Protein backbone atom coordinates (compact mmCIF):
# COMPACT_ATOMS: atom_id res chain seq x y z
CA UNK A 1 0.00 0.00 0.00
CA UNK A 2 1.52 3.33 -0.94
CA UNK A 3 2.40 5.31 2.09
CA UNK A 4 0.36 8.30 3.09
CA UNK A 5 -2.36 8.65 0.48
CA UNK A 6 -6.00 8.03 0.86
CA UNK A 7 -6.46 4.50 -0.38
CA UNK A 8 -9.49 2.96 -1.98
CA UNK A 9 -9.54 -0.81 -2.16
CA UNK A 10 -11.13 -2.07 -5.37
CA UNK A 11 -9.75 -5.54 -5.66
CA UNK A 12 -6.34 -4.02 -6.08
CA UNK A 13 -4.60 -1.23 -4.33
CA UNK A 14 -5.32 2.20 -5.79
CA UNK A 15 -4.76 5.68 -4.44
CA UNK A 16 -7.56 8.13 -4.94
CA UNK A 17 -5.58 11.32 -4.56
CA UNK A 18 -1.97 12.33 -4.16
CA UNK A 19 -0.62 15.82 -3.57
CA UNK A 20 2.62 17.44 -4.63
CA UNK A 21 3.84 20.96 -3.90
CA UNK A 22 6.53 22.18 -6.28
CA UNK A 23 8.78 24.82 -4.68
CA UNK A 24 10.29 26.93 -7.48
CA UNK A 25 13.87 28.10 -7.42
CA UNK A 26 15.79 24.85 -7.10
CA UNK A 27 16.22 24.58 -3.38
CA UNK A 28 17.54 21.90 -1.12
CA UNK A 29 14.30 20.94 0.53
CA UNK A 30 16.19 19.40 3.41
CA UNK A 31 17.40 22.88 4.24
CA UNK A 32 13.80 23.99 4.56
CA UNK A 33 13.23 21.55 7.39
CA UNK A 34 12.98 23.60 10.55
CA UNK A 35 14.39 26.70 8.91
CA UNK A 36 11.99 27.68 6.24
CA UNK A 37 13.33 30.95 5.03
CA UNK A 38 16.70 30.85 3.37
CA UNK A 39 17.35 34.48 2.63
CA UNK A 40 20.98 33.70 1.82
CA UNK A 41 19.94 31.59 -1.11
CA UNK A 42 17.47 34.19 -2.22
CA UNK A 43 20.15 36.83 -2.26
CA UNK A 44 22.35 34.73 -4.48
CA UNK A 45 19.67 34.50 -7.15
CA UNK A 46 19.56 37.52 -9.37
CA UNK A 47 15.93 36.74 -10.31
CA UNK A 48 13.65 36.51 -8.53
CA UNK A 49 14.87 38.68 -5.71
CA UNK A 50 13.17 36.51 -3.18
CA UNK A 51 11.83 33.02 -3.05
CA UNK A 52 8.30 31.80 -2.58
CA UNK A 53 9.38 30.61 0.90
CA UNK A 54 10.15 34.07 2.24
CA UNK A 55 7.61 35.18 4.82
CA UNK A 56 4.73 37.53 4.21
CA UNK A 57 3.88 39.31 7.47
CA UNK A 58 5.54 36.39 9.23
CA UNK A 59 3.41 33.86 7.35
CA UNK A 60 4.67 31.04 5.18
CA UNK A 61 2.57 30.62 2.06
CA UNK A 62 3.62 26.97 1.81
CA UNK A 63 2.01 26.32 5.15
CA UNK A 64 -1.23 27.93 4.01
CA UNK A 65 -1.29 25.48 1.06
CA UNK A 66 -0.42 22.57 3.33
CA UNK A 67 -3.37 23.49 5.54
CA UNK A 68 -5.66 23.46 2.52
CA UNK A 69 -4.37 20.07 1.41
CA UNK A 70 -4.83 18.74 4.91
CA UNK A 71 -8.49 19.79 4.83
CA UNK A 72 -8.94 17.38 1.91
CA UNK A 73 -8.21 14.54 4.31
CA UNK A 74 -4.79 13.65 2.93
CA UNK A 75 -2.28 12.31 5.40
CA UNK A 76 0.82 13.55 3.65
CA UNK A 77 2.14 15.33 0.61
CA UNK A 78 5.36 15.56 -1.32
CA UNK A 79 7.50 18.65 -1.63
CA UNK A 80 9.54 18.76 -4.81
CA UNK A 81 12.24 21.21 -5.77
CA UNK A 82 12.69 21.44 -9.53
CA UNK A 83 16.49 21.77 -9.55
CA UNK A 84 16.55 18.71 -11.67
CA UNK A 85 13.53 17.77 -13.72
CA UNK A 86 14.49 14.12 -13.30
CA UNK A 87 13.54 14.44 -9.65
CA UNK A 88 9.99 15.38 -10.62
CA UNK A 89 10.01 12.71 -13.29
CA UNK A 90 11.02 9.97 -10.88
CA UNK A 91 8.48 11.15 -8.34
CA UNK A 92 5.69 11.12 -10.91
CA UNK A 93 6.74 7.67 -12.04
CA UNK A 94 6.54 6.61 -8.41
CA UNK A 95 2.98 7.91 -8.21
CA UNK A 96 2.06 6.06 -11.39
CA UNK A 97 3.50 2.80 -10.05
CA UNK A 98 1.57 3.28 -6.84
CA UNK A 99 -1.67 3.53 -8.80
CA UNK A 100 -2.45 7.14 -7.95
CA UNK A 101 -5.75 8.05 -9.59
CA UNK A 102 -5.50 11.80 -9.33
CA UNK A 103 -2.67 14.11 -8.48
CA UNK A 104 -3.05 17.59 -7.02
CA UNK A 105 -0.03 19.59 -8.12
CA UNK A 106 0.56 22.99 -6.52
CA UNK A 107 3.40 25.15 -7.78
CA UNK A 108 4.28 27.55 -5.01
CA UNK A 109 3.92 30.83 -6.83
CA UNK A 110 0.67 32.24 -5.54
CA UNK A 111 -1.32 32.77 -2.40
CA UNK A 112 -4.93 31.82 -3.13
CA UNK A 113 -7.77 31.33 -0.71
CA UNK A 114 -8.97 28.37 -2.67
CA UNK A 115 -11.31 25.62 -1.56
CA UNK A 116 -9.48 22.59 -2.95
CA UNK A 117 -12.53 20.40 -2.35
CA UNK A 118 -14.45 22.58 -4.78
CA UNK A 119 -11.63 22.17 -7.31
CA UNK A 120 -11.88 18.39 -6.86
CA UNK A 121 -15.65 18.47 -7.37
CA UNK A 122 -15.21 20.50 -10.53
CA UNK A 123 -12.60 18.06 -11.78
CA UNK A 124 -14.95 15.11 -11.20
CA UNK A 125 -17.84 16.83 -12.92
CA UNK A 126 -15.97 17.99 -16.00
CA UNK A 127 -13.98 14.74 -16.35
CA UNK A 128 -11.01 16.67 -17.68
CA UNK A 129 -7.73 14.77 -17.70
CA UNK A 130 -6.18 18.01 -16.44
CA UNK A 131 -7.94 20.79 -14.57
CA UNK A 132 -6.03 24.03 -14.29
CA UNK A 133 -7.07 26.68 -11.76
CA UNK A 134 -7.12 30.17 -13.25
CA UNK A 135 -8.11 33.58 -12.05
CA UNK A 136 -8.59 36.74 -14.10
CA UNK A 137 -4.83 37.08 -14.54
CA UNK A 138 -4.12 33.51 -15.56
CA UNK A 139 -2.67 30.38 -14.00
CA UNK A 140 -2.39 30.15 -10.25
CA UNK A 141 -0.08 27.15 -10.27
CA UNK A 142 -2.75 24.73 -9.05
CA UNK A 143 -3.60 21.69 -11.21
CA UNK A 144 -5.44 18.43 -10.84
CA UNK A 145 -4.05 15.69 -13.06
CA UNK A 146 -6.10 12.63 -13.79
CA UNK A 147 -4.26 9.30 -14.05
CA UNK A 148 -4.82 9.46 -17.83
CA UNK A 149 -2.70 12.61 -17.98
CA UNK A 150 0.35 11.71 -15.97
CA UNK A 151 0.37 7.89 -16.33
CA UNK A 152 0.66 8.37 -20.08
CA UNK A 153 3.63 10.66 -19.66
CA UNK A 154 5.32 8.14 -17.39
CA UNK A 155 4.64 5.12 -19.59
CA UNK A 156 5.91 6.82 -22.71
CA UNK A 157 9.09 7.62 -20.82
CA UNK A 158 8.94 11.17 -22.08
CA UNK A 159 11.01 13.81 -20.44
CA UNK A 160 9.04 15.50 -17.71
CA UNK A 161 6.53 18.08 -18.76
CA UNK A 162 3.50 19.12 -16.78
CA UNK A 163 0.59 18.25 -19.08
CA UNK A 164 -1.49 21.26 -19.99
CA UNK A 165 -5.24 21.16 -19.99
CA UNK A 166 -5.41 21.10 -23.78
CA UNK A 167 -7.98 23.83 -24.03
CA UNK A 168 -10.43 22.04 -21.75
CA UNK A 169 -12.61 23.87 -19.27
CA UNK A 170 -10.38 25.40 -16.63
CA UNK A 171 -11.41 25.96 -13.04
CA UNK A 172 -12.21 29.64 -12.75
CA UNK A 173 -11.23 30.82 -9.32
CA UNK A 174 -13.02 33.98 -8.25
CA UNK A 175 -11.72 34.24 -4.70
CA UNK A 176 -8.74 36.13 -3.33
CA UNK A 177 -5.39 35.40 -5.02
CA UNK A 178 -2.01 37.12 -5.41
CA UNK A 179 1.19 36.03 -7.14
CA UNK A 180 3.87 35.99 -4.47
CA UNK A 181 6.81 36.02 -6.87
CA UNK A 182 5.78 39.46 -8.10
CA UNK A 183 6.99 42.25 -5.82
CA UNK A 184 3.99 44.36 -6.75
CA UNK A 185 1.38 41.71 -5.94
CA UNK A 186 3.30 40.70 -2.86
CA UNK A 187 3.06 44.26 -1.61
CA UNK A 188 -0.65 44.30 -2.46
CA UNK A 189 -1.06 41.12 -0.41
CA UNK A 190 0.75 42.81 2.50
CA UNK A 191 -1.64 45.77 2.31
CA UNK A 192 -4.70 43.51 2.08
CA UNK A 193 -3.59 41.35 5.01
CA UNK A 194 -2.85 44.42 7.14
CA UNK A 195 -6.29 45.88 6.46
CA UNK A 196 -8.23 42.62 6.71
CA UNK A 197 -9.09 42.49 3.02
CA UNK A 198 -8.00 38.85 2.84
CA UNK A 199 -7.85 35.90 5.24
CA UNK A 200 -4.12 36.18 5.95
CA UNK A 201 -3.27 37.80 9.28
CA UNK A 202 0.06 39.20 10.45
CA UNK A 203 1.92 36.79 12.70
CA UNK A 204 2.57 38.79 15.84
CA UNK A 205 0.97 40.62 18.70
CA UNK A 206 -1.44 43.38 17.79
CA UNK A 207 -0.37 46.34 19.93
CA UNK A 208 -2.92 48.77 18.56
CA UNK A 209 -5.26 49.12 15.65
CA UNK A 210 -3.61 47.72 12.50
CA UNK A 211 -0.16 47.49 14.12
CA UNK A 212 1.42 44.09 14.78
CA UNK A 213 4.78 43.43 16.41
CA UNK A 214 6.61 40.10 16.43
CA UNK A 215 8.17 38.53 19.48
CA UNK A 216 11.42 40.13 20.64
CA UNK A 217 11.22 43.16 18.34
CA UNK A 218 13.00 46.21 19.76
CA UNK A 219 11.77 49.69 18.98
CA UNK A 220 13.48 52.83 20.28
CA UNK A 221 11.25 55.27 22.14
CA UNK A 222 11.36 57.83 19.35
CA UNK A 223 10.31 55.38 16.65
CA UNK A 224 7.13 56.32 14.86
CA UNK A 225 4.90 53.42 13.84
CA UNK A 226 2.05 54.34 11.52
CA UNK A 227 -0.56 51.65 10.95
CA UNK A 228 -1.31 49.54 9.11
CA UNK A 229 2.12 48.09 9.77
CA UNK A 230 3.90 44.89 10.73
CA UNK A 231 7.30 44.57 12.43
CA UNK A 232 8.62 41.02 12.62
CA UNK A 233 10.24 39.09 15.43
CA UNK A 234 13.61 40.27 16.76
CA UNK A 235 13.73 43.21 14.37
CA UNK A 236 15.48 46.28 15.74
CA UNK A 237 14.20 49.73 14.83
CA UNK A 238 16.50 52.51 15.97
CA UNK A 239 15.83 56.07 17.11
CA UNK A 240 13.89 58.43 14.89
CA UNK A 241 12.89 55.80 12.33
CA UNK A 242 9.38 55.75 10.89
CA UNK A 243 7.71 52.49 9.91
CA UNK A 244 4.46 52.64 7.95
CA UNK A 245 1.90 53.06 6.74
CA UNK A 246 1.50 49.83 4.77
CA UNK A 247 4.95 48.62 5.73
CA UNK A 248 6.15 45.16 6.58
CA UNK A 249 9.56 44.73 8.15
CA UNK A 250 10.04 40.98 8.48
CA UNK A 251 11.98 39.18 11.19
CA UNK A 252 15.61 39.81 12.19
CA UNK A 253 16.03 43.13 10.39
CA UNK A 254 17.73 46.31 11.57
CA UNK A 255 16.31 49.67 10.53
CA UNK A 256 18.83 52.31 11.51
CA UNK A 257 18.24 55.83 12.86
CA UNK A 258 15.88 58.12 11.01
CA UNK A 259 15.09 55.76 8.16
CA UNK A 260 11.54 55.81 6.79
CA UNK A 261 9.94 52.61 5.50
CA UNK A 262 6.63 53.35 3.85
CA UNK A 263 4.40 51.16 1.63
CA UNK A 264 7.28 48.73 1.42
CA UNK A 265 8.45 45.32 2.52
CA UNK A 266 11.81 44.61 4.11
CA UNK A 267 12.65 40.92 3.89
CA UNK A 268 14.32 38.98 6.73
CA UNK A 269 17.94 39.62 7.76
CA UNK A 270 18.16 43.01 6.09
CA UNK A 271 20.09 46.00 7.43
CA UNK A 272 19.00 49.49 6.36
CA UNK A 273 21.44 52.36 6.94
CA UNK A 274 20.46 55.61 8.73
CA UNK A 275 18.45 58.34 7.10
CA UNK A 276 16.99 56.45 4.15
CA UNK A 277 13.63 56.77 2.50
CA UNK A 278 12.26 53.40 1.37
CA UNK A 279 8.98 54.00 -0.39
CA UNK A 280 7.08 51.62 -2.70
CA UNK A 281 9.88 49.10 -2.58
CA UNK A 282 10.93 45.63 -1.57
CA UNK A 283 14.32 45.29 0.09
CA UNK A 284 16.07 41.96 0.38
CA UNK A 285 19.47 42.34 2.00
CA UNK A 286 21.51 44.59 -0.25
CA UNK A 287 18.97 44.71 -3.07
CA UNK A 288 16.02 46.99 -3.54
CA UNK A 289 13.25 46.50 -6.06
CA UNK A 290 11.60 49.86 -6.54
CA UNK A 291 7.98 49.45 -7.57
CA UNK A 292 7.50 53.03 -8.77
CA UNK A 293 10.52 53.00 -11.09
CA UNK A 294 10.26 49.27 -11.78
CA UNK A 295 13.95 48.79 -11.32
CA UNK A 296 16.27 46.75 -9.14
CA UNK A 297 19.09 48.55 -7.33
CA UNK A 298 22.10 47.05 -5.62
CA UNK A 299 22.41 48.91 -2.32
CA UNK A 300 25.55 47.07 -1.27
CA UNK A 301 28.16 49.30 -3.02
CA UNK A 302 26.51 52.38 -1.58
CA UNK A 303 26.51 50.95 1.94
CA UNK A 304 22.82 51.77 2.22
CA UNK A 305 21.67 48.22 2.81
CA UNK A 306 23.11 44.78 3.38
CA UNK A 307 22.41 41.23 4.46
CA UNK A 308 22.73 40.47 8.17
CA UNK A 309 24.58 37.25 8.93
CA UNK A 310 22.58 35.13 11.25
CA UNK A 311 23.48 32.75 14.02
CA UNK A 312 22.63 29.13 13.40
CA UNK A 313 21.07 28.57 16.81
CA UNK A 314 18.99 31.72 16.61
CA UNK A 315 17.52 30.75 13.28
CA UNK A 316 16.74 27.23 14.40
CA UNK A 317 15.03 28.25 17.58
CA UNK A 318 12.75 30.69 15.87
CA UNK A 319 11.55 28.54 13.02
CA UNK A 320 11.03 25.47 15.16
CA UNK A 321 9.01 27.51 17.63
CA UNK A 322 7.13 29.11 14.79
CA UNK A 323 6.18 25.77 13.25
CA UNK A 324 4.94 24.25 16.42
CA UNK A 325 2.98 27.31 17.47
CA UNK A 326 1.20 27.53 14.16
CA UNK A 327 0.31 23.93 13.62
CA UNK A 328 0.23 22.65 17.14
CA UNK A 329 2.64 19.99 15.95
CA UNK A 330 -0.07 18.62 13.68
CA UNK A 331 2.32 17.76 10.90
CA UNK A 332 5.92 16.72 10.91
CA UNK A 333 8.56 16.93 8.27
CA UNK A 334 9.59 13.70 6.62
CA UNK A 335 12.95 12.16 7.36
CA UNK A 336 15.97 13.25 5.40
CA UNK A 337 18.58 10.91 3.97
CA UNK A 338 21.77 10.88 6.00
CA UNK A 339 23.93 11.79 2.99
CA UNK A 340 24.83 15.45 2.64
CA UNK A 341 23.58 15.58 -0.95
CA UNK A 342 20.92 18.17 -1.76
CA UNK A 343 17.49 16.62 -1.45
CA UNK A 344 15.18 17.35 -4.40
CA UNK A 345 12.03 16.05 -2.73
CA UNK A 346 10.69 15.27 0.68
CA UNK A 347 7.56 13.88 2.22
CA UNK A 348 5.55 15.93 4.69
CA UNK A 349 3.25 14.21 7.17
CA UNK A 350 0.07 16.17 7.66
Amino acid at each position, binding site marked *: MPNGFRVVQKGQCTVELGAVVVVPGGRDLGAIQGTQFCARQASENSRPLYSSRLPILGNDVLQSWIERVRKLGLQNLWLISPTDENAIWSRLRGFAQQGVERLLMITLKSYAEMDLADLLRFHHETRNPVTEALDAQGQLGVRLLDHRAFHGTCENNESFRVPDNGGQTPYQFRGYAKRILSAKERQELVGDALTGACAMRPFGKQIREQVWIGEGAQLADSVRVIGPTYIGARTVVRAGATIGPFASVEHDCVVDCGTIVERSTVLPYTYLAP*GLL*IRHGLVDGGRLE*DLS*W*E*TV*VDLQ*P*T*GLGSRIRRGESRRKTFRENDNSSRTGGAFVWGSRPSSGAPQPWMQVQL
Partner: protein
Amino acid sequence: MKTEAHTILPFPCESSSASRRALRKGFLATLRISGRPVIVDLSDCSTLNHDDIDLLLDCVAHATGRDTELLLVAGSRVNRVLLEVTRISTVVPVFNSVEEAVAHPNSVKSAKEQIAPPPIATENAEDQRTSQFQGLWSA
Protein backbone atom coordinates in the same frame (compact mmCIF):
# COMPACT_ATOMS: atom_id res chain seq x y z
CA MET B 1 31.04 73.18 -19.39
CA LYS B 2 28.94 76.32 -19.37
CA THR B 3 25.75 77.23 -21.17
CA GLU B 4 24.53 80.76 -21.31
CA ALA B 5 22.75 80.45 -18.00
CA HIS B 6 24.05 77.23 -16.41
CA THR B 7 27.20 75.46 -15.41
CA ILE B 8 27.11 71.77 -16.27
CA LEU B 9 29.41 69.41 -14.39
CA PRO B 10 29.72 65.88 -15.78
CA PHE B 11 30.06 63.34 -12.98
CA PRO B 12 32.76 60.76 -13.80
CA CYS B 13 31.88 57.11 -13.35
CA GLU B 14 34.95 55.80 -11.59
CA SER B 15 37.91 57.54 -10.14
CA SER B 16 40.83 56.95 -7.79
CA SER B 17 40.81 58.49 -4.34
CA ALA B 18 43.25 61.19 -5.52
CA SER B 19 41.18 62.15 -8.52
CA ARG B 20 38.05 62.02 -6.38
CA ARG B 21 39.59 64.53 -3.98
CA ALA B 22 40.37 66.78 -6.93
CA LEU B 23 36.87 66.28 -8.26
CA ARG B 24 35.35 67.21 -4.92
CA LYS B 25 37.49 70.31 -4.72
CA GLY B 26 36.50 71.29 -8.24
CA PHE B 27 32.80 70.69 -7.67
CA LEU B 28 32.70 72.66 -4.44
CA ALA B 29 34.69 75.50 -5.97
CA THR B 30 32.29 75.67 -8.89
CA LEU B 31 29.32 75.75 -6.54
CA ARG B 32 31.03 78.56 -4.63
CA ILE B 33 31.90 80.81 -7.52
CA SER B 34 29.53 79.79 -10.30
CA GLY B 35 27.01 82.56 -9.81
CA ARG B 36 24.56 80.59 -11.96
CA PRO B 37 22.66 77.31 -11.54
CA VAL B 38 24.90 74.26 -11.50
CA ILE B 39 23.75 71.04 -13.15
CA VAL B 40 25.57 67.89 -12.03
CA ASP B 41 25.14 65.34 -14.79
CA LEU B 42 25.30 61.69 -13.67
CA SER B 43 24.57 60.33 -17.17
CA ASP B 44 28.02 58.79 -17.55
CA CYS B 45 27.64 56.98 -14.28
CA SER B 46 25.29 54.01 -14.55
CA THR B 47 25.24 53.48 -10.80
CA LEU B 48 26.61 55.20 -7.71
CA ASN B 49 28.81 53.90 -4.91
CA HIS B 50 29.14 55.29 -1.39
CA ASP B 51 31.92 57.73 -2.41
CA ASP B 52 29.69 59.14 -5.13
CA ILE B 53 26.84 59.59 -2.69
CA ASP B 54 29.17 61.23 -0.17
CA LEU B 55 30.29 63.69 -2.81
CA LEU B 56 26.74 64.45 -3.89
CA LEU B 57 25.72 65.03 -0.27
CA ASP B 58 28.68 67.43 0.09
CA CYS B 59 27.54 69.28 -2.99
CA VAL B 60 23.97 69.49 -1.71
CA ALA B 61 25.14 70.81 1.68
CA HIS B 62 27.46 73.31 -0.01
CA ALA B 63 24.83 74.55 -2.43
CA THR B 64 22.17 74.85 0.25
CA GLY B 65 24.46 76.86 2.48
CA ARG B 66 25.21 79.33 -0.34
CA ASP B 67 21.82 79.58 -1.99
CA THR B 68 23.34 78.23 -5.17
CA GLU B 69 20.83 76.50 -7.41
CA LEU B 70 21.90 72.87 -7.80
CA LEU B 71 20.19 70.47 -10.19
CA LEU B 72 20.92 66.82 -10.81
CA VAL B 73 20.56 64.78 -13.97
CA ALA B 74 20.06 61.15 -12.87
CA GLY B 75 20.92 59.55 -16.17
CA SER B 76 19.48 56.17 -15.19
CA ARG B 77 16.60 54.71 -13.20
CA VAL B 78 19.05 53.15 -10.78
CA ASN B 79 20.55 56.55 -10.00
CA ARG B 80 17.10 58.04 -9.72
CA VAL B 81 16.13 55.42 -7.12
CA LEU B 82 19.38 55.93 -5.20
CA LEU B 83 18.79 59.69 -5.12
CA GLU B 84 15.32 59.04 -3.73
CA VAL B 85 16.48 56.48 -1.17
CA THR B 86 19.15 58.86 0.12
CA ARG B 87 16.55 61.66 0.12
CA ILE B 88 18.80 63.85 -2.03
CA SER B 89 15.88 64.23 -4.41
CA THR B 90 13.81 65.82 -1.65
CA VAL B 91 16.17 68.80 -1.48
CA VAL B 92 17.53 68.98 -5.03
CA PRO B 93 15.48 68.74 -8.22
CA VAL B 94 16.37 65.65 -10.26
CA PHE B 95 15.87 65.36 -14.03
CA ASN B 96 16.22 62.68 -16.65
CA SER B 97 18.31 64.74 -19.07
CA VAL B 98 20.35 67.92 -19.22
CA GLU B 99 17.76 69.39 -21.60
CA GLU B 100 15.03 68.88 -19.01
CA ALA B 101 17.19 70.43 -16.31
CA VAL B 102 18.01 73.47 -18.46
CA ALA B 103 14.33 73.94 -19.28
CA HIS B 104 13.26 73.65 -15.64
CA PRO B 105 11.38 76.86 -14.70
CA ASN B 106 13.10 77.29 -11.34
CA SER B 107 16.48 76.97 -12.93
CA VAL B 108 15.58 79.47 -15.64
CA LYS B 109 14.16 81.83 -13.05
CA SER B 110 17.22 81.41 -10.88
CA ALA B 111 19.49 82.05 -13.85
CA LYS B 112 17.59 85.24 -14.65
CA GLU B 113 17.89 86.33 -11.06
CA GLN B 114 21.59 85.71 -11.20
CA ILE B 115 22.18 87.75 -14.33
CA ALA B 116 19.72 90.52 -13.52
CA PRO B 117 21.31 93.88 -12.85
CA PRO B 118 21.22 95.05 -9.25
CA PRO B 119 18.20 97.23 -8.43
CA ILE B 120 18.63 100.95 -8.38
CA ALA B 121 18.74 102.13 -4.82
CA THR B 122 16.03 104.58 -3.93
CA GLU B 123 14.91 105.96 -0.65
CA ASN B 124 11.33 104.94 -1.28
CA ALA B 125 10.68 101.32 -0.37
CA GLU B 126 7.79 101.06 -2.86
CA ASP B 127 10.03 102.31 -5.65
CA GLN B 128 12.71 99.82 -4.60
CA ARG B 129 10.29 96.86 -4.90
CA THR B 130 9.20 98.11 -8.33
CA SER B 131 12.77 98.42 -9.58
CA GLN B 132 13.59 94.92 -8.34
CA PHE B 133 10.58 93.57 -10.21
CA GLN B 134 11.62 95.40 -13.37
CA GLY B 135 15.18 94.16 -12.95
CA LEU B 136 14.03 90.55 -12.76
CA TRP B 137 12.04 90.71 -15.95
CA SER B 138 14.41 92.91 -17.89
CA ALA B 139 17.04 90.17 -18.01
